[in-house]
């Protein structure tokens, strides 16, 4: 389907997913303003959000399936499979988060229906990040997402940890946004445009290393992204924020927010700086340091939630390795791994939410002792999540890592591949103890785990994630094919020649 962007109908069609989600934002906003007095009202808000997300997802998939493309140069929003693929990722993450939150909020006594509204706004921002083909749109999406997530991190106002997390995140986030914006400004100064494709044609016209302004702009942009995806050493906020936020929000941040950062990073690098060597080297170092530091520090954690926070940093390193390859195989590997990562991370946080109370900050590995005998299904699902995070064969995590590795090897980055494998070995040191605790240790007391339950939406999240991880672990072809097609949008079909500034 070719969409003509010169008429209104075409424009509406091109923006349909965002418009649908935006419409549901309004619906939820009105509902929340009207009814917010009880948990039942909040539950309705959640269901409304779920409906909005599912409809947006349907729209995206419809556009993707009908192969919607723009007749002209899409100035602000791209119309390519990559946009649809990333939107699917974000919407999937958001849907899982809403499902997880339905019971969680009530259990934790958080009655703030705006929670769902913020989730929708955040997701909308992500869709602009993944789809924006202009730095300004990406920045707007980034800010929309970030502001929503700042608030979400501090949604439980009674918890001091929550407040601390939100404040830290906000302060450092604002700091990083400054870098990001400054980078955009410098790039605009060097190229005279903020459109990604046009920047690309400009950059290929001059040697970047000699153009200090563009180089500095790229550097600052990278730092802004590195903060959002929690790459070492711009990750320092992550453990504190993940730890203090309500667990479903943590899952959302670890999975969807991170994926959004990567989605935009990949598009910017591929479209605007495709032929440029310097960023490969910079990202190479970021990837290596992130993998090493994330995995090493995760090893030293006792608390499960903090361990998962560091694990998410380590995974940012793996995803950076995929980006570093700079090939469309790397992009496909990113998309597949991000899908697997979304499922396993949210799944793991769902189990954590089931196992703990009061923000789950106190749940340690020992608290899982004997879960295998008391809650066999839950323990089995947790085992799948842990093994998948570890990259164990038979799970989607393995296939994903395998494709990242093969992309890195194809890009002649053997050393990066070696680091990835070695740090994965280290990660066994913290992914396996929970499994061991669940199956090889006796419960600490007769009534242990009596309250560990997953009900309703959370049960669906756990079961669905675990099942999909195993399915994609054994029959990855359909998902891999989707990832491959999704990555094709990253190479611009037409090269536009424009006059220099």
């Amino acid at each position, binding site marked *: 389907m070719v969409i003509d962007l010169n008429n209104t109908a075409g424009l509406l069609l091109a923006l349909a997913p965002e418009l649908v989600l935006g419409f549901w934002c309004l619906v939820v906003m009105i509902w929340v303003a009207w009814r917010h007095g009880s948990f039942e009202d909040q539950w309705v808000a959640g269901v409304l959000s779920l409906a909005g997300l599912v409809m947006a997802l349907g729209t995206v998939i419809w556009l993707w399936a009908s192969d919607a493309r723009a007749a002209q140069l899409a100035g602000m929003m791209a119309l390519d499979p990559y946009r649809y693929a990333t939107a699917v990722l974000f919407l999937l993450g958001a849907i899982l988060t809403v499902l997880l939150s339905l019971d969680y909020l009530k259990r934790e006594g958080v009655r703030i229906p705006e929670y769902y509204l913020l989730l929708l706004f955040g997701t909308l921002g992500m869709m602009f990040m993944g789809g924006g083909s202009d730095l300004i749109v990406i920045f707007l999406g980034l800010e929309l997402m970030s502001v929503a997530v700042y608030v979400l991190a501090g949604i439980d106002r009674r918890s001091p940890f929550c407040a601390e997390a939100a404040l*830290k995140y906000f*302060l*450092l986030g604002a*700091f*990083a946004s400054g*870098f990001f914006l400054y980078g955009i400004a410098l790039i605009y100064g060097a190229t005279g445009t903020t459109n990604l494709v046009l920047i690309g044609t400009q950059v290929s016209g001059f040697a970047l*290393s000699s153009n200090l302004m563009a*180089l*500095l702009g*790229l*550097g600052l942009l*990278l*730092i802004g992204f*590195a*903060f959002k995806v929690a790459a*070492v*050493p*711009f990750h*320092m*906020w992550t*453990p*504190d924020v993940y730890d203090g936020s309500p667990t479903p929000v943590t899952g959302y941040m670890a999975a969807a927010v991170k994926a959004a950062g990567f989605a935009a990073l990949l598009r910017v690098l591929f479209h605007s700086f495709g032929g440029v060597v*310097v*960023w490969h*080297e*910079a990202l190479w*170092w*970021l990837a290596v340091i992130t993998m090493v*530091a994330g995995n*090493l*520090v*995760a*090893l*030293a*954690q006792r608390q499960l939630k903090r361990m998962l926070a560091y694990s998410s940093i380590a995974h940012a390193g793996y995803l950076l390795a995929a980006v570093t390859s700079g090939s469309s195989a790397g992009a496909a590997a990113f998309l597949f791994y991000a899908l697997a990562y979304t499922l396993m991370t949210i799944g793991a946080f769902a189990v954590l939410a089931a196992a703990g109370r009061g923000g789950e900050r106190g749940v340690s590995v020992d608290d899982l002792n004997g879960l295998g005998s008391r809650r066999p299904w839950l323990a089995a699902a947790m085992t799948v999540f842990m093994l998948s995070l570890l990259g164990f064969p038979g799970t989607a995590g393995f296939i994903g890592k395998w494709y990242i590795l093969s992309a890195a090897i194809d890009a002649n980055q053997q050393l990066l591949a070696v680091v990835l494998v070695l740090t994965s070995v*280290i990660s066994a*040191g913290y992914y396996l103890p929970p499994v061991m605790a669940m199956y090889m240790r006796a419960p600490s007391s007769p009534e242990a785990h009596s309250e560990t339950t997953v009900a309703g939406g959370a049960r669906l999240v756990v079961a669905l994630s675990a099942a999909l991880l195993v399915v994609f672990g054994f029959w990855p072809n359909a998902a891999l094919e989707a990832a491959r097609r999704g990555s094709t949008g990253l190479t611009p079909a037409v090269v536009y020649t424009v006059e220099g500034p």
Partner: protein
Amino acid sequence: MTEIPEAVRLVWLAAALPLLGFLANGALSLFRPAARRAVTAIGVGTVAAAFAVSVLVAAGLAGSGAHEPVVLTYWSWIPAGDLVLNLAFQVDQLSVVMLLVVTGVGALIHVFSIGYMGEDPGYARYFAYLNLFIFFMLVLVLGSNFPVMFVGWEGVGLCSYLLIGFWFEDKANANAGKKAFIMNRIGDAGFLIAMFLIFRSLGTLEFTEVFRLAPVSFEVGGTLITLITLALFLGCTGKSAQIPLYTWLPDAMAGPTPVSALIHAATMVTAGVYLVARANVLFAMAPISSAVVAGIGALTALFAATIALKQWDIKKVIAYSTVSQLGYMFLGVGVGAYVSGIFHLVTHAFFKALMFLAAGNVIYALHQAYHATHRHEDAQDLRNMGGLHRYMPWTAALMWIGGLANIGLPPFSGFFSKDSILAAAFARGHDAPIFYVFWALGTVGAVFTALYITRLLIYTFHGPNRTGEAERQHLREAPPVMTGPLVILGLGSVFAGVLNLPHVLPAAGWLEHWLEPVTSLGAVFLPEFHLTAGTEWGLLALATAIAVAGIAAAWRLLKPEALVPARQAVPERGIERVLANKYYVDEIYDALIVRPLIWFSERVLWRTVDALLIDGVAVNGMARLTRLFGWIGSRLQTGQVGTYVVLFVLGTLVLLRVMAG
């Protein structure tokens, strides 16, 4: 290539049926172990059907008159670069002979097992293993390349292990299984090395290709071909229980007696002989290796025969007899008389299976008797037997037939096959005198064979009964389901000799003619066997004289009346004691190889290398180091935003520096 006969195409079914039987019986043993009728029907039915298929295949091959082997490729098993391995079966004159022996004798022993194992709680498991064994044995003899054969080779080893340790509640049985497995692994290393060498030098492992390329690629008597064949033969010494790897076979008698008959007498242990015959081109091109094969065979034949003289366990006597007879087979294939080796393999399959199953009947009868009186005596000790022909006439008569065939008394089958081996060795002596020595060893071995077999039969069936007063009335002949297969094996033991009569007799050399397409490959490298009719008659007369003299001497010298039951027996002295203790070979191996190896493994490899260096320094040391770094990293996590910003800015500077190049 000529049209492949339809019947030959059925050969896959011969292997698939026992596999199906294994799967079905395996499932039954797990879920419905009590369903004995179903187990019997499946277990015996599949093997009997496999035999029927084998007969069709043989008839098809004979009818087609094909000279080239028929290779049926089923699927590509390992395509890896230059190495392309197919799962393929090769049907030719040699594999058909093996096919008939394995399924035919196998089916009879399956029938026998219905009675022998009838009351065992592991009935279903037993038949599952037995079916699996037949499957792997067929893969071994049908495989069209070395690796497929090796799969069968390892598979039968596995089944042997499982069945030796079938009554694994007794630790001695489990140990015997382990011993067999480990000894075989030593030989298997040789097999593997041979395969690597063949692939490296010829680039293929398909039998037809290897045997086509070998004469043009290798130099006759060259180092490489000698190494390859010696490595192959090392594999044979493990699987076929030859010096120095024979000690597992007597211990393997810990398994049920039908297993001893099937695996450790008739089929599996002859795989080495089959391998040498199959690779006859390679061995014919390596005279040194062939001489080694013949020499080891002759030595084993004599050595094992002397040990058999003083064993008291009825199964041990037959086991050493098996080792000895396998030695004769290797003597045959070693001197280049591949047909004689295979011929002896076939006749031996009949008479040795017969001996074992008859011994099974005896053990079964004694066991039932002791069970009835609740006495715990050794049901396998010759000293507890005697005079049994009065209680079990059928078994006695049949075991005498098997025994006489084993001794090689004319006109029993063993006479012709053993004589053809010794005659071939004698003939080779004309060119290389060392073969006269091998012939002499084999001939002396034949004397001892006559002695120990006669001793076994006299002590078991004649003289006074020593089982015990109370037990005597419980001694009974075995049921027809057990004696029936014995009758058929008895017929084979008597008449199988006609397959390959000596040249001086009419209708001679049928098997030789049948196997000609296979053995002609190697024949070009071998000198012509030539014996004058006079010499041949002389050798036949000598063999007859030895058999008669041996039996007569044993009959006169042995005094079954003087024997006392095992419980009251005094230990032997002098040379008798050495023989009874099997020359102390097990003890020597233990002292020279096993103990030093255990010491080295425990002190050096385990405590020093593994526990101290690898576990202590490398693994735990690395883990500690890693944790230390992790701890430092988490110390940086102060919770102060100021620290975070400092790190952020530092990171920014470094990153920009990297990008600036």
